[in-house]
């Protein structure tokens, strides 16, 4: 069990890293892009870059704002 936990922790740290919100936003952005493209037939190529920029900005704001307090 301990081995499994450390194995999981390694992959979590390797892929997700310090801020899971970024990973969640990227996955959410991809899901919405897929829905817009396949269901609403909108070629939403612009959505994922916007989500990526917003995720980075929000993550930077959160970590630096907490340090300033």
């Amino acid at each position: 069990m301990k081995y499994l936990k450390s194995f999981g922790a390694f992959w979590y740290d390797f892929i997700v890293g310090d801020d899971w919100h970024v990973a969640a936003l990227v996955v959410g952005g991809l899901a919405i892009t897929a829905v817009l493209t396949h269901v609403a037939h909108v070629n939403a190529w612009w959505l994922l870059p916007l989500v990526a920029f917003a995720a980075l900005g929000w993550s930077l704001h959160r970590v630096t704002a907490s340090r300033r307090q």
Partner: protein
Amino acid sequence: MNALPLILTVFVACTVEAVEALTIVLATGITREWRSTFQGMAAALVALAVITAAVGPAISYLPLTGLRLVVGALLAIFGLQWLRKAVLRATGYKALHDEASAYLREVAAAEAATKEAKRGVSDWYSFTLAFKGVLLEGLEVVFIVITFGTNQQNVGAAVIGAAAAIVVVTLTGIAVRAPLTKVPENWMKFAVGVMLTSFGTFWGAEGAGVAWPGNDAALLVLVPVVALVAAAYIFWLRSRKTAAGAPAKQSEVVA
């Protein structure tokens, strides 16, 4: 797409990983024992070869659309984490990754550890340290080579970039026998973060079904735009810090 951007991207990304692995290997070998250190390195390289042999061909059998969706998501997440750290380091919110101080930390830890023979290895500490260091950094190299190579359908070019990086860093390490402190690591990480985020966003969106305007040529716009946005975040954080008059926090431990 021309193979040169792919080779250069993989080369820069793998150089950063190789420099970090070299620091650990040098600190262990010089302070403790080269034989066990090389055994640890060799064991890690065998493990990496097994992982690559198992994962590489399996990935090539996956449908390209699904592969681009999953790999694009992983690369975008990976790239944004690299960019986040690079921006925080560039603005003083996170201590710069200093190979000289990382080397000194490793040396101090290696000197403090006791020597213990185990499983045919004369110094188990040197073995495990070299094994972990090379395996962890090597996994990132394998990840980058496989994802970039399969997505661009040019694994050979990605391997050339990675191999060139490892050879250059190894030869430089042998020549100077010291950690490569002159490498502008943060700016290289910034550049790699930009490339990973751009390629990840491009492939991820393509996997989700979008058609990029101009097809592959969209990357020529996406890469500079990602770099500009990240640079703008550096400018924003610096100006905000200056306005607040807050001192830079340098105490964060760098992983």
